[in-house]
């Protein structure tokens, strides 16, 4: 049945854990839609023949709906619509909240290509390698206009915006190659802004990462790449370490846990911080990025608002590298 409906509705293959959930709601909604259209259509056609005109100035009966009928007209659609809303909301919440231990990949959209960087090292342009059966989170930003990251087989899509990070996650179930589209119109070559997700079996993925680190495949990747986009093949965290030195972060932030003018980087990631004004914040990528771009927005209690903004001084890949570096400084558990 599933297969039959699948082919009937031209759905792409189901290659992530979301796909089945989304598709079953899809069948429910589209099925009811078709039944309703056919039902209303048939009722209308039946009425046309049953109640066709017999004389020119024919008088008709004065028929009005009873309160019960009108209540039925309202409640039946409402019950269906709210059911779909509830299921849709539940799935949407599931799809937008990445699990804690997901593997992170940074994504940069640019007219008209996708660049993927892994915290452990390799970069890729227009090809994203991920292991099967593992939660993967993409942290995405754009260098110019709005793009949108869409993998039909995974049933995921998220806009990629300049100046901020958005995230999307998935768990691919089957090794294979899947198409990535840009779905937000982004200019002349919008339709050429394509990429692929290559899902590898977990052991194959480990091998691939090792080879990437050795650099044996690096040349091939670089050959595909727009040279201006590809950073030197350094690990992101290492890049970040260099950047915190060169950008002057270490003047105010320590990396060994001692408090200074600003909060220490050690153990900062994933910590609960209490803010000026009594609120609490969970330190994640978004908070760290915001603190670099707009330091005054959320000040941790006990520190002054003295940090200058790095808006415009760091580009997306650099701030991502710094975030990765801070993430390596987690407190020992």
């Amino acid at each position, binding site marked *: 049945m599933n297969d039959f409906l699948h082919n009937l509705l031209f759905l792409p293959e189901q290659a992530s854990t979301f796909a089945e959930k989304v598709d079953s709601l899809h069948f429910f909604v589209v099925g009811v839609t078709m039944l309703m259209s056919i039902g209303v259509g048939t009722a209308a056609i039946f009425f046309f023949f049953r109640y066709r005109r017999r004389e020119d100035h024919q008088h008709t009966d004065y028929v009005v709906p009873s309160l019960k009928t009108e209540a039925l007209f309202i409640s039946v659609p409402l019950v269906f619509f709210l059911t779909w809303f509830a299921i849709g909301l539940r799935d949407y919440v599931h799809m937008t909240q990445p699990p804690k231990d997901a593997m992170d990949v940074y994504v940069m959209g640019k007219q008209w290509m996708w660049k993927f960087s892994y915290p452990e090292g390799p970069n890729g342009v227009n090809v994203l390698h991920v292991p099967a059966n593992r939660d993967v989170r993409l942290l995405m930003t754009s260098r110019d206009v709005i793009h949108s990251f869409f993998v039909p087989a995974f049933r995921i899509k998220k806009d990629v915006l300049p100046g901020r990070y958005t995230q999307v996650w998935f768990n691919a179930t089957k090794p294979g190659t899947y198409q990535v589209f840009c779905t937000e119109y982004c200019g002349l070559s919008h339709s050429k802004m394509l990429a692929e997700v290559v899902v590898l079996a977990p052991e194959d993925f480990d091998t691939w990462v090792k080879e990437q680190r050795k650099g044996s495949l690096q040349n091939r990747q670089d050959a595909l790449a727009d040279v201006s986009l590809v950073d030197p093949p350094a690990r992101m965290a290492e890049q970040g370490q260099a950047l915190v030195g060169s950008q002057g972060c270490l003047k105010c932030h320590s990396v060994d846990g001692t408090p200074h003018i600003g909060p220490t980087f050690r153990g900062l990631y994933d910590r609960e911080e209490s803010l000026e004004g009594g609120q609490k914040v969970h330190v994640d990528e978004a908070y760290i990025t915001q603190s670099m*771009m*707009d330091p*005054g*927005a959320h000040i941790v209690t006990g520190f002054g*608002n003295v940090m200058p*903004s790095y*808006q415009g001084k760091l580009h997306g890949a650099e701030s991502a590298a710094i975030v990765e570096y801070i993430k390596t400084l987690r407190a020992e558990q």
Partner: protein
Amino acid sequence: MQSSAPVVSVPEGTQAPKFAAHFATLDVQNHAARLGMWLFLSTEILLFAGLFVCYGFYRFNFPEAFAEGSRHLDLFLGTVNTIVLITSSFTAAMAVHYAKASKNKMVTLMIALTLLMALGFLVIKGFEYHHKFEQGTLPGKYYHFAGIQVPGITLYFTVYFLSTGLHAFHVIIGMGILAWVMSRSMKNHFNYANFTAVELGSMYWHLVDLVWIFLFPMLYLI
């Protein structure tokens, strides 16, 4: 439904209200004109509402830049302008009062005073703008003031110039409308039966005033 032109006796020398034959009565015609004006004013409010939303959104994102920016405006000139504009609204209202009393000379005087104050408002606003051009506190890429360099400050001045600029544009339109009303009061047109034009012009002027009453605290005070 069939209506013939109603006979209204009006004071010597003034003009009887013009009656358009497609209305049922003169009252209905005046009611329609007022209703139309209210609807038009609601569109004006919504026009500015878009800018207020931009202001609110960016103020929430960059509270410091906006506080810094507003401290940098000339509070004294802003206050003077507010007083000038509120007073001009009062004289515009008085013009309606005198029109209802068929005192066309007083209508002319009141509108002249309103126009004078409107001009004063624009001149003061011009001084403020001039200062900002000299200093470099300008919107977007034109901003080059070294004194304030916090993120979001250019947005503050973008909102400032767009909202005060749009408001100034409305002041100029309002002046045009009032000048037209004044040209009619100088010809001794208005009386207790024929004052809708003064009333509508004055309503428009109150709107211009009202928008400023929102803009002033938003931009200068908080």
